[in-house]
């Protein structure tokens, strides 16, 4: 998507519609996953090979419940939206229903995410 197109930072303010926000969130969540996996690999490398303390520091950050709420959002949204994009690309005739596909995406995403956040928060509150 967006091959050779220059949108610049103003692109984020474009008053697009529902599929556009899914596209923007797809990029944002992609960078979130890369941030998490990068931190995870760096922390593990530090703890096992360098034996410094900064790996433990990073570990404490990404194992905290508020960070996991964001990671879970990124992973679930990126997976479901990526699946939607792949399905619409394989069967382009379905592109007629792109907006409905995004509504379906949110309908599937919301219960999964709300339930996961409920589990994370209830566990964080009870200290489990």
């Amino acid at each position: 998507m967006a091959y050779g197109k220059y949108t610049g930072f103003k692109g984020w303010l474009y008053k697009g519609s529902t599929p556009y926000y899914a596209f923007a969130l797809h990029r944002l969540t992609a960078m979130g996953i890369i941030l998490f996996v990068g931190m995870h690999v760096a922390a593990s490398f530090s703890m096992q090979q360098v034996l410094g303390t900064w790996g433990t520091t990073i570990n404490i950050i990404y194992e905290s419940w508020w960070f996991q709420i964001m990671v879970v959002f990124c992973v679930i949204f990126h997976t479901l939206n990526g699946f939607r994009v792949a399905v619409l690309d394989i069967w382009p005739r379905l592109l007629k229903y792109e907006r409905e596909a995004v509504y379906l995406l949110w309908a599937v995403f919301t219960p999964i995410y709300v339930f996961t956040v409920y589990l994370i928060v209830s566990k964080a509150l009870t200290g489990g």
Partner: protein
Amino acid sequence: MRPRYVPNRGINLDYLMWLFTRISGLGIILLSLIGLSSAMYMGARLQMDLPTVLRWTFFPNPNHVVNSNIPDVTIGWATAFWQIMQYLILFFAFTHAANGIRMIVEDYIGHTFWQPFVRALIALVWMGMVIIGIYVILGSAY
């Protein structure tokens, strides 16, 4: 706004990476589902907790779950099948990510003087991550 650059039609890097992104994305979903269901199956035997299930879902490596209170990691975990699964998800995930970050960055910098340098930097990081992954896979107990 920069004028839009119209790409050539036919088989080129961007078309192949577009295709790869779809295939690897679906591949990662499939591999994760296999990892998740296998973790559930093996966890019934080995008393697995949630972090272990997630670790096995996204990177089914014996060393990846070794800190997770598993009595004996070698039962059902360290086989050639899982080694192949690790290589597949490693290659799919890091290549998908490297190409994705390349597309995002190139949307902002465009076709400028810096493009080859950014591509080289991303390729270097990609190669480093793949090498770390292969090191972890080969360094695990089998």
